[in-house]
């Protein structure tokens, strides 16, 4: 079961990485099609708005050619790191000896990654307050809440691992 979960996370990471690279490359190329009219496959410009057609998955992704693209790229980069870290997190449970400093570091990194969206949501809420617009409970809030729940569970795992590491060290020092 653990191996299936780890293998699935690996597959998920590689699929996402391929999609990430594809979107990154073609979002840059879409600028050239938009600006110079160069015909580039998988890109179409409709009403001055470039779109990327993702093969196999059949997705059509709107590419904003303003500062929003930075938010899109940073979100995509975050999830590329997130899925990699998720894969590494599951690897801890597959390993024969899981009570290692390396495993603890992996879990700590994954914990931090799950807390990072909190910063984003704070900025989002502050921007609502500064702009004076009516507060809207967007999907982003639920995604962040899910990340925080995951962070809490990882925190508990981390505690178990720390205690396990301590017991193992004591056991290793029993001659």
């Amino acid at each position, binding site marked *: 079961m653990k191996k299936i979960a780890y293998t699935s996370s690996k597959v998920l990471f590689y699929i996402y990485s391929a999609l990430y690279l594809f979107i990154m490359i073609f979002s840059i190329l879409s600028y050239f099609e938009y600006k110079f009219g160069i015909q580039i496959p998988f890109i179409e410009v409709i009403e001055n708005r470039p779109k990327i057609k993702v093969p196999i998955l059949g997705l059509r992704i709107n590419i904003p050619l303003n500062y929003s693209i930075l938010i899109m790229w940073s979100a995509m980069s975050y999830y590329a790191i997130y899925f990699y870290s998720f894969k590494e997190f599951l690897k801890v449970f597959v390993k024969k000896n899981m009570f290692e400093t390396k495993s603890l570091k992996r879990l700590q990194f994954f914990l931090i990654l799950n807390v990072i969206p909190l910063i984003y949501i704070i900025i989002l809420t502050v921007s609502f307050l500064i702009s004076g617009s009516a507060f809207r409970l967007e999907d982003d809030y639920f995604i962040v809440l899910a990340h925080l729940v995951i962070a809490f569970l990882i925190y508990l795992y981390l505690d178990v691992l720390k205690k396990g590491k301590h017991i193992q060290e004591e056991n290793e*020092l*029993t001659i």
Partner: protein
Amino acid sequence: MPIIVNLDRILAERKMKSKELAEIIGITTANLSILKSGKAKAVRFSTLEAICKALDCQPADILEYVEG
């Protein structure tokens, strides 16, 4: 730690090398070194028995309590 391991002294008295003792009692020299340096958290009775047998001594000759 207030428990002192006097293995070095007993080994010197018996003119035995650490490597020899490790081989006789069936532990690695690294573990014997941990035991000698006082870094060990616990000693198994089986290990203590093997050491006493190999060095022909009592547990009290090896372990000493020093108030500190």
